[in-house]
């Protein structure tokens, strides 16, 4: 199953690995039957999508689970949400498309809220940056290509001279695949990104 969730507020400070452990415990509390790998130290069959850097919020993040029994997708979402705070709620659950999320996605959108009034200049980052929009004073929306080996959003901002002192919040709006002029979300559906380009979207 592929699930979509969010990670907000102070929970954005949970590292990728810690979140994986927290999620495993939530799944156990919710009695959702997850498969285990074989071998000497069996691992829950669960894999998170591309990591969010510590301190970055995510509105639409993804995780794949392998269940040992068939469950109603919405049921899984409800049960899991009972075991997690609203900032870490699951929003959607579908049977997994047959592609690996991490390899699939190549595009992402971030909002960056600066704490001080300064122009965001991203000179050093040509290749990765597709588009940048100034939404409001101090708020920028960045459209980035995710290429293997490319530095993450935080490094990118840092390399253009910012530090956490200057950043109030970074939020990832989502991750997609940009292919043949189309945009696909991690469930494999075509999406229109115009709403993200419109200021009020």
């Amino acid at each position: 199953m592929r699930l979509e969730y969010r990670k907000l507020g102070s929970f954005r400070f949970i590292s990728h690995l810690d979140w994986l452990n927290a999620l495993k415990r939530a799944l156990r509390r919710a009695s959702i039957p997850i498969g285990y790998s074989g071998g000497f130290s069996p691992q829950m069959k669960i894999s998170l999508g591309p990591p969010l850097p510590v301190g970055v919020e995510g509105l639409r993040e993804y995780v794949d689970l392998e269940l040992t029994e068939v469950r109603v997708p919405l049921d899984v979402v409800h049960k899991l949400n009972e075991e997690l705070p609203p900032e870490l709620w699951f929003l959607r659950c579908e049977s997994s498309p047959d592609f690996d999320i991490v390899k699939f996605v190549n595009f992402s959108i971030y909002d960056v809220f600066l704490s001080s009034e300064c122009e965001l200049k991203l000179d050093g980052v040509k290749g990765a940056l597709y588009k940048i929009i100034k939404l409001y004073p101090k708020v920028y929306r960045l459209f980035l290509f995710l290429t293997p080996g490319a530095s993450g959003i935080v490094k990118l901002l840092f390399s253009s001279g910012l530090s956490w002192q200057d950043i109030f919040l970074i939020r990832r709006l989502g991750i997609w695949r940009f292919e043949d002029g189309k945009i696909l979300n991690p469930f494999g559906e075509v999406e229109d990104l115009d709403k993200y380009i419109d200021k009020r979207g």
Partner: protein
Amino acid sequence: MRDWLSLVSRPSRYIGREWNIPAKEWKRSEVRVCLAYPDTYEIGMSYLGYKILYWLLNGFEWLSAERAFTPWIDAEMLLRSRGEFLRSLESSTPLKDFDFLGVTLQYEMNATNILTLLDLGGIPIRAEDRDDDHPIVIGGGPGAFTAQVYAPFFDCFLLGDGEEAFLELLRAYRDWRRAGGKRRDFLAEAGDHFPWLWVPLAHGRSKLVRRSIIPSLDEGFYPKVDLVPWTEIVHDRVSVEVFRGCTRGCRFCQAGMVYRPVRERSLDKVVEIAKNLVLSTGYEELSLTSLASCDYSMIKEALISLRSEFQRLGLRLSLSLPSLRMDTFSIDLAEEIMSDGRKTTLTFAPEAGTQRLRDVINKNITDDDIFKTVEELAKRGWNRVKLYFMVGLPTEGDEDISGLVSLVKGIHRLGKRFNRRFSLSVSLASFVPKAHTPFQWEGQLPQDVLRERMRFIKSSLKGKDIEVHYHDVDLSFLEAVFARGDHNLASVIERAWRKGARFDGWDEQLNMRTWISAFSEEGIDPYYYAQRKISYDEKLPWDFLDSGVDKDFLILEHRSALLGRASGDCRWDSCLRCGVCQKYSVRNEIASRV
């Protein structure tokens, strides 16, 4: 609220809101307690006693218990630079606004972190400077048995088992407040009333402070749930305390003296608690904890029933025991735990290298036990073993050091013979003489001697693919200073803290120069505290803190040590009349005997 989180290392230790956190109107309870742990979140959250109190106190409507930990140095600086107070995790209340600040005294070298908690929390660090608006600062935990060292920083100390006593104290406080009494007046009153409470400003060292003892764990409180942190903590698992106290009588061990007698939990309770904790937290690992869990009389039954119980529930669970005894029974237990075939590292603590020295310290295992155990575990396919030894034990001579080397070599050879992949790691710590033990009259060896002995061991084991680690000798030296300290040391702690000493128990944080200058500026000779032998007739600074164990018994044990005579264990041999059971009307409670 905490907009500084992106600016510090490991921010997830400050976010709180762990799963299962009680839904309370924190700010509206009649009595508000903050349980403060003078170390990082990851360490404090791993300490069982702290969490038992948390859940116990939060079970009452009129009472609430929140948490605070010493922030790491970067976070402290940030809070200071912004003029912000240290706040509780639950309701973000500055520590100064609580009724009580309960500080866990677990480790000597947390002392400076206590001052950070107080100062950053907006509380004057010395009790004499506090008034009715400040919380009552109370210390508890093992460190309360050497409370004289920290006395100026505390309003009172609770000696012994904290659960029932603390609750009783808080109830009395509630009633006192209801009757319109003042906070500071309550202290003196309570100090007169509760035998286990020491109020330094009221009593000086004139009161014989008695220990609070819970006679039976089954009747005492144990939480049904536990917090599930959002970040990895040191003991990242749920724990069931299978017994409290230990009567093995190792002569260097303070816990083995001050927590007597042994009080075991019944098998049914252990299983019931384990079930509650695992189901409510989703943890994948459960630990049966105590000072020496292999000694639990129902240990094998416990492991077997836990396994079948969780199998029945369809839940995978790994079990763990904190440390193993050196005998084949323990290997059977280890086998029982590792039902999934995983053979992790086995850890043992022979503590000394020769039979003679083990008799001196009363560690009742023989070379024969050791070799049999190693042979057995190697045969059964375990290949990683870790051994703990102490260096600088009383009466230790060159032959003991070379004996240690040949013991380790022997173990290594034997292990290799039965298992080609056998590997050994050895950890060496300096002996620290502790108050309330038979070795409280002994001194610690000078640091260069300890270093020399450790170096000798390490070089003698070189090239054998045996890993040798040793604890920082300077750190052990400071531990020894405070382990037998008196009231004069508080000013040294304060001075070192003012000079920037923080998290001194963390090897990379310890700055010896800071401490040495703090000692010299206070005109205190640390070597006197750490290294001198004390005579039996000298009055000891902690004599008025009564663990229940008679001084005469400690003297007797010390004399037997010097004669190389081992003593038995009153659980299965006769009572040694240490004094606790007679004085406190308690006895060893053994689960298999009821």
